[in-house]
C-alpha cells in the first residue's frame, strides 16, 4: 500500500531534477545595465553644464554605449518646450518658471551671465568655431537613441506636465530606478 503511494512522488522528484538541469533562459532584469552602460544624472540647468552633458551623452551614444540620462531638479528646465513661458499650477511654481525661463534655448550661464550678454557671446563664439549649440546636440542625442528619464518628483515639485515637455522623453521615474542601474554596473556621471 505504502509503496504504491510513494512511487509517484519519487518519480516526480526525478522529473523535477531532470528539468532543473535543462538550460534556462537568463532572466532579463528590469533596468539591468552592463559595463558598457552610462548613466548621466543631469542635475544642473546652467548653460555650460547643459552643453557639457549633451556633448558627453551624444558622444557616448555615438560610441555604442547605452546611454541613459536621468533628468532631475534644474536639469528638467532644459527639457521644457522652448515656447512655454510660465509653467506650473501654484503661484510659487509659476513664479519659479518666471524667474528662470525654461527651455533648451534659454539656459543661462552660472557665472558672467550679464543679463544674457554672456550666453549671447558664447553663442556667437560657438558659431564662429563650429561648435554645435544645445538645441542641435539635443536633437542628435534623441536621434542617436539616448534614453531620457525625467524625474517624477521634480515634475511634481515644479508642476510640470507631460505636455510641457519636449518629445522624445521616456516615462518619468524615481531615484530607485537610477540606483538599480548604477548598482548593476553602469558608469555614473553627475552634472
Amino acid at each position, binding site marked *: 500500500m505504502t509503496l504504491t503511494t510513494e512511487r509517484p512522488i519519487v518519480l516526480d522528484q526525478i522529473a523535477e531534477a531532470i528539468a532543473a538541469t535543462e538550460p534556462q533562459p537568463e532572466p532579463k532584469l528590469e533596468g539591468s545595465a552592463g559595463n558598457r552602460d552610462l548613466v548621466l544624472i543631469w542635475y544642473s540647468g546652467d548653460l555650460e553644464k547643459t552643453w557639457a552633458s549633451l556633448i558627453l551623452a551624444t*558622444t557616448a551614444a*555615438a*560610441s555604442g554605449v547605452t546611454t541613459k540620462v536621468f533628468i532631475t531638479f534644474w536639469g528638467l528646465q532644459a527639457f521644457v518646450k522652448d515656447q512655454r513661458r510660465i509653467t506650473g499650477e501654484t503661484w510659487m511654481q509659476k513664479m519659479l518658471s518666471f524667474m528662470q525661463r525654461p527651455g533648451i534655448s534659454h539656459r543661462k550661464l552660472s557665472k558672467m551671465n550679464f543679463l544674457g550678454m554672456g550666453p549671447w557671446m558664447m553663442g556667437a563664439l560657438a558659431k564662429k568655431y*563650429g561648435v*554645435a549649440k544645445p538645441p542641435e546636440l539635443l536633437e*542628435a542625442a534623441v536621434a*542617436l537613441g539616448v534614453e531620457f528619464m525625467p524625474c517624477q518628483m521634480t515634475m511634481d515639485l515644479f508642476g510640470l506636465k507631460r505636455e510641457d515637455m519636449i518629445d522624445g522623453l521616456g516615462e518619468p521615474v524615481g531615484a530607485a530606478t537610477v540606483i538599480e542601474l548604477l548598482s548593476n554596473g553602469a558608469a555614473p556621471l553627475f552634472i
Partner: protein
Amino acid sequence: MDTLEVKATPAIDAKVDARGLSCPMPIVRTAQAVKTLPSGAIVEVLATDPGSTKDFVAWCRSTGNELVEQTTDGAVFRFVIRRK
C-alpha cells in the same frame, strides 16, 4: 620577391564632411552615417578639428569599427573607416 607594399584605398561607400565642425559633431555625424550602412562598408570622413586625430582612433576602438587609413592634408584630416 616581396609583394608590393602599396595598399589601395578601398572603394568609398559614403562620405562625411565634418570640416569646420567642432567636438563632438565629427564623431556624431560619422556615427549617424555608419549606422545607415551595412557591415564592411567604407566611410571617408573629412575633419578640421585637431582633436579628431585622437578622437577617431578612440572611437574606432570603442565601437569596434576599423580605422583603415588616417592622413593629413594641410589642415584637413582624413579618416577611412570600415564598419564592423
